[in-house]
């Protein structure tokens, strides 16, 4: 009798497993579809002044990798041409052409999802040669000065070099003539270039980066920092302060390797600014984006291809089987009574509109009113169908009054009450009444509590967004749920409540 069950269950487990591994291994779906991290909106804006022909404006854009996803990039170019240039490791947007007589606005806007734990490991850079304009003597001077740190490991070496920006060379300090020589170099090339040269002399690969710190705000110029390779990763060195930043993940580079983040080769711009604001954006958007971009068979058959207004329904629908699975568990494994099989799940669906506390409260309140009225109705000796119709009307009157009261009090939850399953509520009132009459108030309350408990659990499950997302991306997960339901259907062992009920029959030897 049990034989045909196992292959079926096995198939229901294996089939989705194949689909899942195909999606994860070949289509590179996320293993855990929940997207922890933070989302920022970056907006770069500038005004182009009229009057100059053939202007050219270059702007550094953020670069995408696994730890930094870009969504919905938007560019406004007005009457100008726009090109996007990929120049590893940078992405440069170029506006060119001749603007009309009026001032024009150019802008770049994107949503950025930062996932620090997913940031890929950077590749080890090679130590570049000195820039050609550096004299041999200046090189020798830098190498002489750097020789004092040659025994140190990269990390402390970086810190020691950084300190020189403040004029701290450690003790004993180098001879005066070298320091004086270095001052001249600093004046000749600028402090930043001199620092880079010193880093090079200390065998530390480094690069200049322009970008933004990930904090809310508006800047008229991006920040400039130096990234130094410590053998493992880039450390962020503030050339002015001579300090190493403790949190390198909280930066957004716009132009790496000495390029400026905004360069105007010809023309004139004003009011350039970079603004960052943190966004609350659903994780759905990111998956939607990535699935929209590909043409793979399974991607084309993804639920993400549905129009958004229908997607919402399926997010919930796909989790309802889990809700009824819980009811099966509670009834067949635990032996807990509920009103009907599906009522708690329908209640849970209704709670989505009203919220849990209000939903339960409204439910309990209407059940109580319904019960009292039902008791009264019994004396009127009404026939079954008109009596049920009357209770249904009562339920709807209760909804109406609640909505009006809710409107007066400004409680949206009360107005959302219309979506509570009124038919179910009507039937619950009748069943509750019959149960109380036949088996006593205790049994009635126990069943009501059981139903409420299942409704709350189901509600928690169907509102859990990571789970919604998981089932939405991998709807094949319904098959293993069905498999568990089959297994549960074949469970012929004792219910938890029976262990208590039959406890006196135990064989205690």
């Amino acid at each position: 009798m049990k034989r045909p069950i196992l292959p079926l269950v096995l198939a229901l487990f294996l089939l989705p497993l194949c689909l899942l591994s195909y999606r994860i291994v070949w289509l590179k779906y996320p293993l855990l579809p929940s997207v922890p991290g933070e989302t920022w909106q970056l907006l770069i804006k500038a005004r182009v002044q009229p009057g100059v022909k053939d202007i050219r404006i270059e702007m550094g854009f953020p670069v995408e990798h696994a730890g930094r996803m870009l969504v919905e990039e938007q560019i406004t170019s007005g009457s100008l041409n726009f090109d996007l240039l990929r120049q590893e490791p940078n992405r440069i947007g170029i506006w060119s052409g001749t603007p009309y007589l009026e001032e024009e606005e150019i802008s770049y806007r994107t949503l950025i999802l930062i996932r620090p734990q997913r940031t890929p490991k950077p590749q080890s850079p090679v130590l570049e040669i000195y820039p050609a304009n550096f004299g041999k003597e200046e090189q020798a001077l830098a190498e002489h000065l750097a020789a004092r740190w040659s025994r140190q490991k990269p990390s402390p070496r970086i810190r020691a070099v950084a300190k020189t920006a403040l004029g701290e060379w450690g003790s004993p300090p180098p001879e005066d003539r070298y320091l004086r020589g270095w001052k001249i170099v600093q004046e000749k090339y600028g402090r930043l270039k001199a620092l880079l040269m010193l880093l090079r002399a200390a065998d530390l690969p480094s690069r200049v980066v322009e970008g933004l710190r990930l904090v809310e705000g508006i800047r008229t110029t991006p920040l400039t920092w130096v990234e130094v390779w410590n053998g493992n990763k880039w450390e962020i060195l503030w050339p002015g302060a001579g300090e190493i930043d403790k949190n390198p993940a909280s930066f957004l580079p716009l132009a790496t390797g000495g390029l400026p983040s905004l360069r105007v080769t010809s023309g004139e711009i004003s009011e350039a600014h970079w603004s960052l604001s943190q966004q609350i954006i659903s994780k759905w958007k990111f998956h939607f984006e990535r699935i929209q971009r590909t043409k793979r068979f399974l991607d084309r058959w993804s639920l993400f291809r549905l129009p958004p207004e229908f997607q919402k329904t399926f997010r919930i629908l796909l989790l309802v089987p889990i809700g009824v699975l819980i009811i099966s568990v509670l009834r067949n494994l635990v032996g807990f009574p509920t009103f009907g099989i599906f009522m708690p799940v329908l209640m849970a669906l209704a709670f989505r509109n009203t919220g849990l506390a209000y939903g339960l409260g409204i439910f309990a309140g209407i059940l109580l009113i319904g019960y009292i009225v039902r008791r009264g109705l019994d004396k009127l000796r009404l026939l079954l169908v008109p009596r049920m119709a009357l209770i249904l009307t009562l339920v709807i009157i209760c909804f109406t009054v609640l909505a009006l009261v809710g409107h007066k009090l400004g409680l949206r939850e009360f107005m959302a009450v219309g979506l509570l399953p009124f038919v179910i509520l009507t039937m619950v009132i009748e069943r509750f009444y019959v149960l109380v009459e036949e088996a006593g108030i205790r049994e009635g309350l126990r069943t009501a509590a059981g139903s409420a408990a299942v409704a709350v659990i189901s509600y928690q499950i169907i509102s859990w967004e990571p789970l919604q997302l998981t089932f939405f991306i991998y709807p094949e997960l319904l098959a293993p749920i069905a498999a568990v339901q089959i297994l549960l259907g074949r469970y012929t062992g004792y219910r938890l409540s029976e262990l208590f009920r039959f406890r006196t029959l135990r064989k205690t030897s």
Partner: protein
Amino acid sequence: MIFQIARQLREAGVLGINKRNADFIMHCNPRSLFPLVDDKVLTKKLASEHQIPTPLIYHVIESQGDIADLEGKLGSQNQFAVKPARGSGGSGIVLVMDRTSNAFITQSGEAVSREDFAHHVSDILSGIYSLGGLEDRAIVEALIHPDPIFAAVTYQGVPDVRVVVYRGIPVMAMVRLPTKASDGKANLHRGAIGAGIELHSGLTITAVHQSQVVTHHPDTGKPVSGIQIPYWDGMLLMAARTWEMTGLGYIGVDLVIDRERGPLLLELNARPGLAIQMANRSGLLKRLERTVGTPATIFSTAESRVAWAKEAFKKA
């Protein structure tokens, strides 16, 4: 702890509700045969074809229009029971002991006005008490006058004997004794007492009252064990014959003992409860499993099945 209790119950051969449903009810009782036991009118008809006595039917009320004519149909009968044909668990049953010019006197001495009574019958017809809320019929049948043997351990009402029959073999039995708490109804979940019966002797053994083991009736204070059930062999045979009668392999047979007519088949239940195990302080599964591997010849007649059961279940 949980697994230990579960193991102990399994060793004691206790039948759980999941196993009852999956391995016995679904396995032995084809859905198509359920109407035979769910509708008492059909059951009675079938029983009479198999020479199994049942309480006399006076009248069957088929439609709301028949209600007005009820008085005429009753004739001179002053004592009768009204019950829904498809009711379950004893709900909707009214026992009328006497009639006055404008009221019916029920068993508990309450006077029910003619109007209220008609309303009750109307409720029955509209399906309030029926399984699944389907439209129903109301049966008006002879009142049972219970055998005096149980008088000392009965509070009002009619005690009945429940026999669980598996493939025609009676496997376990109990007598259900109404109490004050059960409002004279012989239903365990309403508070009636269930007293286990030794299959081979027809003597009552232990009893259970609301999941507690009791030795005496809570209202009369008389001991419930050691009562010899009259017509015991006849009742076992009646129970065993319901297999041929219905074709259902796992069935609860409810019998009553009328003072004049002897044992009568009251109703059949295709989903018999499990409380009988507590009344007998013994597991059903253990007995059901003993029937496995019995020679096929035993199943040929009701007599041979009863004889086998009395022998096989002598010890617990």
